[in-house]
């Protein structure tokens, strides 16, 4: 597997002169491989957002280095590298600049001097990828939250990035909107080699990732596959996180004296296990 992005021993403090202040992130190292979906989870103030800003060069580390596509991120290559990274933020209402959906998606393309003909094709393609092509001429404020975030994803995709960073992109959506966005990301990953990095509080979302990085107080606490991570159970709760619903229900059922072969990540498995382990059916 090829590395696409990595942080090597990265430290950043918002007030570097004050040595008493806890650093926002300290000694962080991890690697993201090409085509992976990584979820970064952690309590408020654990350094998740600082990390996102370090990854796309909004901040530069005071110690260590950030490598993207084999190059160390610096002031010179910043713009070239940033064009390889799409970013979608938390609030769907704060990231619209265009008067219509297609204007909005075209905005970054215009900024990057893409020829008009090419631009039209790319706008259509990327809206089709998020299933929003029917809304080409809609005004953004008439869309639902989930639709707005899909348009924001299309705007990022139009630049054909290698990496898509979702910074709590589903946290302000209703359950239906969240499902729409996650289904879109899931589909994109099947169709393209897109690398996805999602920063999230939503453990159900983290469950979909290939790998989870758990942050705690500015440091990487642990990383692993969703099943490795959630097997830690109570330990995660102590870090201010939670457990996915099916896992929580599994533990509660065990405490009720119900036999189970193991704890489960999905409701299907849980219900099936309740049956086979107790009724031999």
């Amino acid at each position, binding site marked *: 597997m090829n590395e696409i992005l990595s942080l090597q021993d990265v430290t950043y403090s918002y007030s570097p002169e004050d040595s008493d202040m806890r650093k926002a992130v300290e000694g962080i190292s991890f690697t993201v491989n090409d085509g992976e979906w990584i979820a970064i989870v952690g309590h408020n103030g654990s350094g998740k957002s600082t990390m996102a800003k370090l990854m796309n060069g909004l901040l530069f580390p005071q110690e260590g280095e950030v490598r993207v596509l084999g190059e160390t991120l610096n002031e010179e290559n910043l713009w070239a590298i940033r064009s390889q990274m799409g970013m979608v933020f938390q609030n769907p209402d704060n990231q619209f600049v265009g008067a219509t959906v297609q204007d909005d998606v075209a905005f970054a393309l215009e900024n990057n001097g893409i020829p008009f003909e090419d631009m039209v094709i790319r706008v259509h393609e990327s809206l089709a990828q998020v299933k929003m092509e029917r809304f080409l001429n809609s005004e953004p404020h008439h869309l639902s939250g989930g639709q707005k975030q899909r348009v924001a994803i299309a705007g990022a995709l139009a630049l054909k990035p290698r990496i898509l960073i979702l910074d709590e992109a589903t946290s302000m959506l*209703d359950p239906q909107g969240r499902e729409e966005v996650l289904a879109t990301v899931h589909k994109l990953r099947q169709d393209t080699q897109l690398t996805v990095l999602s920063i999230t509080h939503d453990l159900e979302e983290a469950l979909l990732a290939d790998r989870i990085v758990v942050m705690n107080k500015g440091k990487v606490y642990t990383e692993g596959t969703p099943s490795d991570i959630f097997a830690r159970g109570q330990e995660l709760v102590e870090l201010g996180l939670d457990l996915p619903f099916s896992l929580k229900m599994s533990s509660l059922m065990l405490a009720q004296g119900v036999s189970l072969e193991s704890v489960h990540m999905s409701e299907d498995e849980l219900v099936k296990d309740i049956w086979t382990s107790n009724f031999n059916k």
Partner: protein
Amino acid sequence: MDIELQQVGYAYSKGTPFEKQALTDVNLHIPSGSYQAIIGHTGSGKSTLLQHLNALLKPTEGTVKLGDLEIQAKKKVKNLKPVRQKIGIVFQFPEHQLFDETVLKDIMFGPLNFGVPADEAERRARALVEQLGLPEEVLEKSPFDLSGGQMRRVAIAGVLAMEPSVLVLDEPTAGLDPRGRQEIMELFHRLYVEKGLTIILVTHSMEDAARYANRVAIMHEGRCVLSGEPEEIFGDELSLAAYRLSAPRVVRLQRRFETLLGYPLDKLCLSEEQLAFEMGTIVRKERDF
């Protein structure tokens, strides 16, 4: 304080080409001391409704009764100040409204505006900081030096400092981590149980509505289409689906369990603990039979 909406309608930009009907014939009674959840799809009118609850918006049709105060369409209302002190609203991302030099001053701002003496306002601020689980040192800090979760608490303390008897919450936990979310929801629940506060929770989270509320109302396309006890509302999956909502996860799991079991459980479970208990009881009974 009882709150009652009678045939309330509201149109934005009324009388202009941009007129948009946001609420239509909304009827809702929120008795004093209840925990009312208001749920609904994005754009269903929840936020417009919420702004009627302390007269930030006045109905363009119908009547809003806030305790003794009656706000009728097309009639002027005087002296809204007392009702705004009694009904506190915590807006979405309330930390964006923090502004003062120190946390202490920020929390005291509301009560001072309502004529509370400075020493009393300070006493309230200190007590609230403790109650919200913040360290005492934050009082002298700038609110902008705090973490997101702490800022949220300070903003909530600023509303509680006015000692409202009704607390209106618009997605109060959005953006918080799971622990922060739980702590804040538990705090509101304590205020409801111990201090008898009326809580009105506007939320996307069916889980929170199911766990905490004793009344649930559904908004859909500007109308209040369904209201009742959580067991009725969340047990009615067909209606929920028609309003583009889904039942809480516990309810969905209960239904799958019932399908396999072949008969329904005695009641609808609205919390994980309750469902585990009920399923556990049945499994033990059936297994050892």
